[in-house]
């Protein structure tokens, strides 16, 4: 799980969600890509972040894209974040005895604009949180930073500042993550995506 390096964090705010990740792809100590996507849009209002083995991150993103498209054809509606989280959990548990080496984070707004975030272990155990979810090689760093900085009912711009500070300061204490960061803020009005200016090491 430490081969490629990652730092992913999602936070709940007042009627909004933030999800952010670093951009490094490494092979142990060698940095191979500085623009590697780990957070993907599933629908316009649901995002998933995946940390862990990069090949599994890519494979699972494609798997989820297929399953969500099939869902849309069958149900004739867009998938809700909670439903998608359960879908992810199912896909991971299918591989219970030969698992994907990933830790997913799901974040989104449901059809009533209620924020939803959850994390999962590599075999799909859902961790429902009221505040924030963290994963990756910088997991412990992120736990401390989020626990210290998060407070309930932050507005979108305040939430952006909070998640950015948590992410930037955490990856600076982790050798395997960093080299740039991206944050998505999901509000009922739409999604704002910002690249963070960070240390490139």
């Amino acid at each position: 799980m430490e081969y490629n390096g990652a730092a992913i964090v999602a936070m709940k705010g007042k009627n909004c969600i933030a999800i952010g990740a670093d951009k490094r792809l490494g092979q142990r100590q060698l940095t191979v890509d500085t623009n590697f996507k780990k957070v993907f849009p599933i629908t316009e209002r649901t995002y998933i972040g995946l940390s862990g083995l990069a090949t599994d991150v890519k494979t699972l993103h494609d798997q989820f894209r297929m399953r969500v498209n099939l869902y849309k054809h069958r149900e004739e509606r867009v998938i809700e974040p909670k439903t998608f989280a359960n879908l992810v959990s199912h896909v991971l548990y299918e591989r219970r005895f030969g698992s994907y080496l990933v830790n997913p984070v799901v974040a989104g707004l449901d059809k009533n604009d209620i924020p939803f975030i959850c994390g999962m272990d590599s075999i799909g155990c859902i961790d429902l949180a009221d505040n924030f979810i963290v994963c990756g090689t910088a997991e412990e760093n992120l736990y401390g930073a989020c626990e210290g900085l998060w407070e309930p009912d932050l507005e979108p711009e305040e939430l952006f500042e909070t998640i950015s500070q948590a992410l930037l300061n955490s990856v600076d204490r982790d050798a395997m993550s960093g080299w740039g960061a991206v944050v998505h803020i999901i509000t009922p009005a739409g999604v704002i995506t910002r690249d963070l200016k960070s240390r490139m090491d």
Partner: protein
Amino acid sequence: MEYGLMHQEPNQHPVAAPREVHNHGFYPYVDNGGTVLGICGKDFALVASDTRQSNGGYLINSRDTPKTFKLSNGTVLGSAGFHADTMQCLETLEQRAQLYFHKHERQMNAKAMAQTLSHLLYSKRFFPYMINTVLAGVDAKGNGVLYSYDPVGSFGEVTQYSHGSASALLNPFLDNQIARAHQTGVDHSALPSREQAIKLAIDAFTSATERDIYTGDWLEILVVDSDGVQEIKRELKHD
């Protein structure tokens, strides 16, 4: 048909006679858990620690064993790791402080103490004190100083640092709140005031207690300035 062509017999390496395996396993160290942190201010410095001591597993040895200590020359030490080594190192360091005092008829200053601790730790380079320490004091001019060490004595002057089981959780938070890393439009050279530093230490430990099982029970803070050492004790979650 020759089966030999279709089924290749794997090369049988000669196997050595099995040796008797003994599993005595004496490991001389134990991680007693817990966290310490140090913050440096303009005219003061502080060390803080929780008071929980664990046995390396799920058992609690004590809820009230602080990891911060006052030394007779006016410096304060915080140390996380193997508590038995902490006590031994502390005793030896205190002896050095007293020997200096009796020889030179004055107390060792903070910088000299820092160097002494480094030598003391390196003297056991090949059977180390399994401790991670911070040393805080004030220099001759009354400015706060803080030093952070690894188990074999490598040290440097810092403005903030934490060691121990929740150090990974606290260091990014301290970098952001003390050194104001990644903050724009602020004075990065400004050090925190006494009240700010104490409040941050308390906030840091309440956060650490939430997520780290080895940190909790009580928090003890020692604030040192040119007037002496102030002790502050706060309760933390006991779960």
